[in-house]
């Protein structure tokens, strides 16, 4: 015992210093490793912005700020005339349609799953939603083209056109002829694609609502609708809006599925049943065979999408901040 103790004391200080130095080195390495990882994100982001601006520079010089509200897109003209209004309009309209459908449906699914659903149904529905998120976008594009497109063009669109014929404003929005490839079809596909984002995140945040709050509300005689409206949603507003923003971000940038079914037309007609294009669809379908100013214009379109997404997300953050301040949190 004594011998053992002596031996330990003899070896102790030396080993301890070495071990501590080893820990210190390990900590420092870990610190720098994670720091480099974190900084690399900034570098990559900065690199993307710089290369986008560099690539878009010739087009910026040529068209200036008018690029944003010029509708004509004529890469073959001499000199080429490029305007981003058509793609910007298409991007905003399809994303708007997608959100208009996906927000109520997504929230509805989330509320049903967390508040009303019998446990035996909860897992299958939850898993179906998650699977929906896992389907590659090209599959949505194909399905939209082969299945949804014909249905919309031959059944749904003629009905809407007939229904709103002659009605001011709405008559123009739902004007014919029906088309397989249109802004509305793309918006509908986008709605299905972003639905899982809204639902999954909403379900997660709805689960964080303390049961005691809900029970208290039910206790004073609230209906389920009132509990959801006055307790669950206000409590989880930040998370829900976060999920919606994530969905909007995806809708704005989605490329492959949209390129399949939007019709690739740069014209703005005002009707949601007419073919159009989005920024990402325009880039996808034209980039490979472009050169010179045309290519630069497409890169500028990419930059516009980048900024558009950035501003939408920034605006959402700002809105959230104001909401929180109003709520006195």
């Amino acid at each position, binding site marked *: 015992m004594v011998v053992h103790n002596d031996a330990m004391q003899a070896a102790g200080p030396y080993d301890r210093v070495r071990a501590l130095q080893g820990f210190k080195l390990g900590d420092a390495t870990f610190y720098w490793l994670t720091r480099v990882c974190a900084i690399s994100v900034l570098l990559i982001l900065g690199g993307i912005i710089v290369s986008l601006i560099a690539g878009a520079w010739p087009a910026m010089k040529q068209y200036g700020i008018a690029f944003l509200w010029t509708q*004509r*897109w*004529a*890469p*073959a*003209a001499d000199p080429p005339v490029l305007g981003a209004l058509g793609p910007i309009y298409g991007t905003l309209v399809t994303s708007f349609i997608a959100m208009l459908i996906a927000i109520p449906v997504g929230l509805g699914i989330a509320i049903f799953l967390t508040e009303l659903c019998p446990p035996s149904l909860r897992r299958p529905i939850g898993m179906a939603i998650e699977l929906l998120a896992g389907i590659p976008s090209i599959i949505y594009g194909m399905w939209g*083209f*082969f299945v949804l*497109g*014909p249905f919309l*063009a*031959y059944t749904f669109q003629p009905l809407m056109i007939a229904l709103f014929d002659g009605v001011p404003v709405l008559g123009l929005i739902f004007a*014919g*002829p029906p*088309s*397989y*490839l249109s802004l509305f079809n793309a918006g509908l596909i986008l709605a299905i694609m972003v639905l899982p984002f809204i639902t999954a995140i909403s379900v997660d945040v709805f689960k964080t609502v303390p049961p005691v709050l809900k029970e208290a509300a039910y206790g004073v005689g609230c209906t389920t609708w009132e509990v959801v409206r006055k307790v669950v949603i206000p409590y989880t507003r930040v998370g829900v809006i976060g999920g919606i923003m994530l969905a909007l971000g995806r809708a704005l940038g989605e*490329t492959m599925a949209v*390129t399949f079914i939007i*019709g*690739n*037309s740069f014209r703005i007609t005002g009707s949601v049943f007419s*073919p159009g*294009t989005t920024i*990402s669809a325009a*880039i*996808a*379908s*034209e*980039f*490979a*065979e*472009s*050169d010179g100013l045309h290519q630069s214009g497409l*890169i500028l379109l*990419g930059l516009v999408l980048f900024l558009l997404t950035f501003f939408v997300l920034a605006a959402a953050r700002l809105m959230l901040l104001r909401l929180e301040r109003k709520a006195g949190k």
Partner: protein
Amino acid sequence: MNFMKTIVAAGLVAASTSALAADITGAGATFPFPIYSKWADAYKKETGNGLNYQSIGSGGGIKQIEAKTVTFGATDMPLKVEQLDKAGLIQWPMVMGAIVPVVNLEGVKPGQLLFDGDTLANIYLGKIAKWNDPAIKKLNPNVNLPADAITVVRRSDGSGTTFNFTDYLSKVSAEWKSKVGSGTAVEWPVGVGAKGNEGVSGNVGQTRNSIGYVEYAYAKQNKLTYAGMINKAGKAVLPTAETFQAAAANADWAHAPGYYVILTDQPGEKSWPVTASTFILMHKEPVDKAASSEAIKFFKWAFAKGGKMAEELDYIPMPDSVVKLIEKTWSADIKS
């Protein structure tokens, strides 16, 4: 995302061209890709020499040959003599094909419907919007045409097919010429855009009451309802090897500097009106002279033995007289 893909694709093209330095390398038009790869297979079996052809589109082919990264470039749109001289290139036609209008109309069989140039131009201008328009009815008194709107399908990407199709429309319609003009990508007044000949075929095949234009091989392979046309001589013709050849025979290759011949709207009672040829581009003073002469050997072989294979794939081989001219051009212009 697509930007990155393109960069990756470009990288792959560069990597594969350097890795297969022993093979003949070429890049360009997608339209002749099936026949070039068929020829390459047969050539490899016969001689042991391979051909590495990247079908990246006519525009890409022109860029790659100008950058000297490939031994030959391929394009569906011929370059003008000034462009060729500026880049130190020579150009010759390799094979011909035809572009046909395709429709999707219930009860209408291939070759049953008939168009003339003006009607086609007006459909693509949006002036004829319904299938039972008097102009279409007049041409097709015996066809039951619906009162539905026409869904116009056209290319969304830059394309040699579009170049030849719009060139034809410009020749037959003054309004088309002034309003839209011709080019690999034009400002389409109406219609939905689809990518590649495959895309247009798919869209027309799917969409009721639609019309599109594709290379004949695509119409045949996809069993689309192609239509007949009224040619310059005022005769109704169907898309067949015979009418394509009749149009091609009219071409005056001998007196065209740089073989700049566009085969649309050719005279002759049997000529198919929208015929096109695809071209090869090579440097007059190649960097790699050995590779260049290997490529010429391949093209010589393709002209001599590839005609039947081309016909099997619905292409039209160049006539012998033109091949003789082209061979003269090679020996005169390419330094080896």
